């Protein structure tokens, strides 16, 4: 079995698939830290639908689907950013409307596509084995930018994740951080259309962060655990899909869910929180 696996790794499409898988896991998992800690899963789902709808429109109009997906993601980010700054609008409702509207656009586009629908379906589920070298390079560049963003702005990111308003009051450029985050979400989601597709990517935008949330109080470790669980989910998912001959996207998502379930079951944080709840130290307040 191991020999067989090593043998197929010598084929360039498989090599590209493995590299893309690792990059997909890393990029989505790093983003998932923000999605989970800023409690914005709806932004993730809206972005993934925007990328999908943009890509279908790209197929319709005869332009590069990933480019059109990225452009629509940026447009959605341009709408979402200012909306989330307005206190008089509940963003959740608008996000709900936005993502169903984008889904409608995507399915409308698929309905009137005269060419084969396989291309559009690949955008939905991803197609790891048909990745081009350009796809892998784009994904590499996007992942590198995201890693640089996290390293260079780590202390600002921590302040913004903690509380955007408090960060702003302390002179942290929280808008810049937030808008860069929206931009990077668009870039990661659209560059991963080819790997896991516009629908399944949502799982990878939540589960690695949710897994890390069960395990650590340290933000640096949080990013590491999230990235490792994302890469692990993608890599194991690929191997499992090869061994059992099942769709790779589905196995990636199922492995990610399994990793979350294990972290949840054996979470030292949950045990600590439960213990504290059982023995509330009221004296803390009047010390």
């Amino acid at each position: 079995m191991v020999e067989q696996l090593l043998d197929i790794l010598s084929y360039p499409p498989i090599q590209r698939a493995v590299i893309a898988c690792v990059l997909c896991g890393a990029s989505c998992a790093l983003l998932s830290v923000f999605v989970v800690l800023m409690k914005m899963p709806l932004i993730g789902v809206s972005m993934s639908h925007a990328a999908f709808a943009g890509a279908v429109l790209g197929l319709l109009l005869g332009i590069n689907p990933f480019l059109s997906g990225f452009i629509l993601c940026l447009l959605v980010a341009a709408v979402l950013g200012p909306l989330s700054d307005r206190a008089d609008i509940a963003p959740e409702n608008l996000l709900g409307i936005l993502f169903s509207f984008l889904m409608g656009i995507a399915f409308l586009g698929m309905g009137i596509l005269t060419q084969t629908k396989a291309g559009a379906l690949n955008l939905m589920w991803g197609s790891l084995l048909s990745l081009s070298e350009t796809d892998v390079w784009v994904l590499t560049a996007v992942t590198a930018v995201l890693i640089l963003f996290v390293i260079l702005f780590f202390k600002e990111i921590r302040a913004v994740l903690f509380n955007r308003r408090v960060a702003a009051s302390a002179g942290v450029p929280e808008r810049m951080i937030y808008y860069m985050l929206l931009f990077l979400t668009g870039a990661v989601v659209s560059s991963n259309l080819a790997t896991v597709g516009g629908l399944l990517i949502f799982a990878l935008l939540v589960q690695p962060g949710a897994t890390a949330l069960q395990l650590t109080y340290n933000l640096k470790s949080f990013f590491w655990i999230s990235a490792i669980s994302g890469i692990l989910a993608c890599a194991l998912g690929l191997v499992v899909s090869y061994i059992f001959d099942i769709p790779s996207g589905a196995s990636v998502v199922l492995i990610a869910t399994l990793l979350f379930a294990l972290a949840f079951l054996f979470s030292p944080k949950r045990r600590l929180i439960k213990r504290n709840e059982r023995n509330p130290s009221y004296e803390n307040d009047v010390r």
Partner: protein
Amino acid sequence: MTQDILTLKDVSVRKQKTLVLKGIHLRLSENEFVGVIGPNGAGKTTLLNVIAGFEEFAGELHVFGRKETWKRVRRTRLRIGYVPQLFPVDPGFPILAAEAVMTGAVGRVGLFRNPGIKEHAEAVRLMEMMRIAHLASRPLGQLSGGERQKISLARAILQKPDVLLLDEPTANLDIAVQKEVLNLMDEISKREALTILFVTHDFNMLPERMRRVVMLKAGEKVFDGDIHKALRSDTLSRLFQYPLETFERNGRRFVSYG
């Protein structure tokens, strides 16, 4: 001579066609400790948000002599510290108490630099002053409300502001903890020489160093002056539209809710 730190001229805020602040005029001098009192919906938090730069407004606002809109440059933001009402933090959120305090130094040190020994030493000094140094390595989300508010105060002061805005910092805390936080504010006012604007609706829980009170009602300023004149039964009953009596004990004035 004391210098004007903040000047508001005819400041109004409109939210969804309703005027929530109506033509407010206000001047704050150096080292003043001013209370903003009023019933719910009076516009107290909105006033604080205008000064903090979180709210669009009409009229003029001068901060340290410079005319400001709601969009602020970093230099101005750094000079205004802000302590919001107690906000929830998930028990599992990955931030320790000391790290939460250090976020107050992030804006001051600027991009691509990390807080150094000086900032860490200052954070330790503030945590000791607030009597929360022993909580430094505890997850923030597992601390009590009072402990989190002390962390919030330490964070805001680490920023080294000239003005400190406090938005009901003692709301939802037990009485003993409220008193402890108020004492800390008196200590901060004395030690750090700050101009403090303190929003509250509880006039029995006021810091001792507060000498001036601004009263707001339905977005309008209805009183601005000495605290002893403010805490009179006729003034307060009119403000809250409820019969309130005041009495003195140990040189301090208290309000009875009848």
